[in-house]
């Protein structure tokens, strides 16, 4: 799906239209407003500053100050050679560059893969502070816990079909996520999973009673069609 949106592959059937553009036509105006951070990436053997110098002019809304701030946060140095950085640092650079492009659509494919625990936290912080309401960020991940605090809409796709789409506020109003020692005495359990401390459960939320969303549990519940 991410490849279809970014124009890397052509749909076998049907048509795709994003902001008035057909992605596969790869119109430069469209590509200048879409940035994809792929799971795997490769860089030429050049310094960060040369890369920025070479590619930033292609993005009309590129914000060098933002890039500089994110570099500071991620402890990246413009003089470093991209191919001499660790995988995690290179990923951080790519995330920093992506956010600085200010593209209307940012596509992240497994953005937290390769990042250590402090970096994942930095990523969440930077993502929230860098993205405006005019931007759409699509994150595809298997590490749902890494991004559960930064998303506002959950979309679950199974075999190419959207089987669940809900705003996080609405989910919090409808569902209550809890960890209980046992299921005894608990009614209306929509989904439960055993864990070392007892049972992780989803029950209908009662008025004024909200919990943080356990995305993994929610995902399993959706896949098992209990929600």
């Amino acid at each position, binding site marked *: 799906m991410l490849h279809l949106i970014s124009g890397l592959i052509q749909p076998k059937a049907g048509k795709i239209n994003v902001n008035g553009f057909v992605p596969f036509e790869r119109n*430069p105006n469209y590509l200048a407003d879409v940035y994809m951070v792929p799971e795997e990436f*490769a860089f030429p053997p050049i310094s960060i500053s040369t890369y920025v110098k*070479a590619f930033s002019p292609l993005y009309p809304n590129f914000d060098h100050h933002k890039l500089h701030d994110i570099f500071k946060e991620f402890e990246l140095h413009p003089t470093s050679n991209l191919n001499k950085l660790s995988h995690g640092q290179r990923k951080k650079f790519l995330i920093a560059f992506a956010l600085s492009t200010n593209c209307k659509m940012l596509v992240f494919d497994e953005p937290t893969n390769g990042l250590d625990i402090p970096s994942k936290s930095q990523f969440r912080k930077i993502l929230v502070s860098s993205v405006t309401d005019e931007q759409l960020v699509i994150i595809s991940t298997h590490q749902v816990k890494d991004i559960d605090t930064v998303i506002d809409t959950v979309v679950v796709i199974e075999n190419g079909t959207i089987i669940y789409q809900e705003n996080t506020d609405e989910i919090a109003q409808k569902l209550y996520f809890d960890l209980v020692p046992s299921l005894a005495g608990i009614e209306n359990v929509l989904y439960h999973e055993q864990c070392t401390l007892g049972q992780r459960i989803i029950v209908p939320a009662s008025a004024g009673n909200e919990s943080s969303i356990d995305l993994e549990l929610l995902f399993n519940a959706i896949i098992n069609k209990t929600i």
Partner: protein
Amino acid sequence: MRSDLLINYKKYCLAILVTFILGFVFLYGSMPRLIYGNEMENRSIIFSSSRYMYIFLASIAALGALAGSSFPDLGSKVKTSNYLLIPASTFEKFSSQFFIRVICGAAIFLVLFWIDARLARAISVMQMVDIKTNLHYANAEHIIDKFNYGMIFLYEKGISYSSETGSYPIEKIVYYKPIETWGTSLFIVSIGLYLFSVRLFFKKLGLVKSIISFVALFFILFLFMVLFSHIFYPRTVGFDMSLPTYTLQKGINNVELWLFLIGFVSPLFLLPLGYFKLKEKQL
């Protein structure tokens, strides 16, 4: 193109340097520096336009390699993804590679070959020693012709006078023969464009596969020629080709015209072919 130059300028500079050095070594190594004193009588020893022509044609393989290694980012899936998502039109991506690898590559190659040829000659002339006297050979400049591109692109004809004591060159006519000159030049250009465009059909080892496909294509053409020879000239034996040459107009024969047509027409479809292949490229 600016991005390409910023990223690859070191690679391009290195390629220029290596081409310059190899060209020099190749030319310098081929030029005579030891003289036995009778070279002026024996014209075959003299380093003339035909020698330059052979070396030029061999060296032009470097240009073919440059053209055939175009679109280096299409060699792997990850790099292809990055390349296709660069915010530039397909035309810009295609034309920038064409400009850098074919136009600039050819121009720089021609300049480098000229410098190499002149430099190699100058050094060889300085170092030329007559074996008999063990001294610098006085007529060294006459042993190696001074290179100019007329030697490659213009046709020469030598007129010699034969006598009992030997053959003496008395006249050299250099003339411009449009069909041969342009036919040969465009045929070389066509090979370059073939390597440049067909490379887009292959994901990995583009240059090698382009060369193999070119050889295969040539072999198929050869088989067709053999087949047609057998059909139209039943006396043809085995893999022989009957390719009668006849003059169409003054100075133009059918094979030259055929070369000219291939050279002239093929860029007209090879370039659009490459462009549309890039446009339809998928991950």
